[in-house]
């Protein structure tokens, strides 16, 4: 099960950063990052601005709060919006 991190600034901001390493999605290889997000890690960086987020994990889910783009939440695993290849890794 996974959740999609939706930018909450209402401006339709493009999600351009890797939620695991915080690097630009267009630069470098992020397959390993996506595997971690699909299995054992919640998002740590805001995909819109790359800021480190305050993340709370509980037994069934997680919440992640970006000081600029608000809070998102999910259950087990993280799904990158629109990334079909990543979604195939999800249980």
């Amino acid at each position: 099960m996974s959740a999609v991190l939706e930018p909450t600034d209402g401006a339709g901001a493009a999600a351009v950063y890797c939620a695991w390493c915080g690097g630009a999605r267009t630069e470098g290889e992020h397959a390993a990052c996506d595997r971690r997000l699909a299995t054992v890690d919640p998002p740590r960086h805001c995909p819109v601005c790359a800021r480190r987020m305050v993340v709370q994990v509980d037994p069934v889910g997680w919440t992640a709060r970006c000081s600029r783009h608000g809070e998102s939440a999910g259950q087990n695993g993280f799904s990158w919006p629109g990334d079909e290849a990543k979604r195939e890794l999800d249980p």
Partner: protein
Amino acid sequence: MTAVETGTTSEDTGEDVLAVAREQVLERGEGLSQEQVLAVLQLPSDRLSEALALAHEVRMRHCGPEVEVEGIVSLKTGGCPEDCHFCSQSGLFESPVRAAWLDKDRLVEAAKQTAKTGATEFCIVAAVRGPDAKLMEQVRAGIAAIRAEVDINVACSLGMLTQEQVDELAAMGVHRYNHNLETARSHFPEVVTTHSWEERWDTLQMVRAAGMEVCCGGIVGMGETLDQRAEFAVQLAELEPDEVPLNFLIPNPGTPFAHLEVPQGADALMTVAAFRLALPRTVLRFAGGRELTLGDLGAEQGMLGGVNAIIVGNYLTNLGRPAEQDLDMLETLKMPIKALNDTL
């Protein structure tokens, strides 16, 4: 290849170590020595199934078929002053994990979520060297709130304790206290430099003397040798803990161990079998890292290889499988979940 060629014989008798373990551990209930544990860890991979099968027999004989299910939650995340090299919550490393506190309502909700899975244990964890007065007060209030709404045993993991804090936690009704030795005494200085293995040992002795159950395990895959892994198993046996949680390293970014490899599945499973043969009567729990190291199939093999307890759901900063997957696995394996009023 014979056992003699692979160095997997008992030093005393020259017999194959699994044959010795069958008599010594299964029949007499005596855990393996350090040399014997090492011999198991050195078994060739084509004997893994045999080792797991024996470990399962030992678990069934000395512990029974029930599985103890537990949930855990982080009350205080990040900002820890200690330098445990595996931990993303140390404030001394450039980790992406930021400090966070869980409020009481969410703590109680986490306990409710855990109880819904059939779990009998709920462990409150804080990333600290040891609790200060503020944390102890939050724990006290949190436990009272959980007890008012949820029928579950409460455990705590709050780092190193003073005698006064041990007594306070016992008086709060804490059922079990977790404090991992993490690794062999000889390897500990390579893992933590801000406190000693002996300081952890001292806390565990106070916990036991106060009447709380002792939960103490560690992490496999932190650069220890097989000899040190065997040393750790025997040191745990000497402690005689009620529970041993077995974690497998998740190399976390920013930590000194970020560069280490995820432990290999076969290596991890042989370790599971070896630890069961060293600790025939202890609750042996699958904890963090099994998702990366073992996957779904490996988790089943572990449950059929000596493990008799699991953490379900998420961990402290990492995610686990959905609890339903583990509960389905236990049903498939025909392993009943331990009830709250049972004692393993």
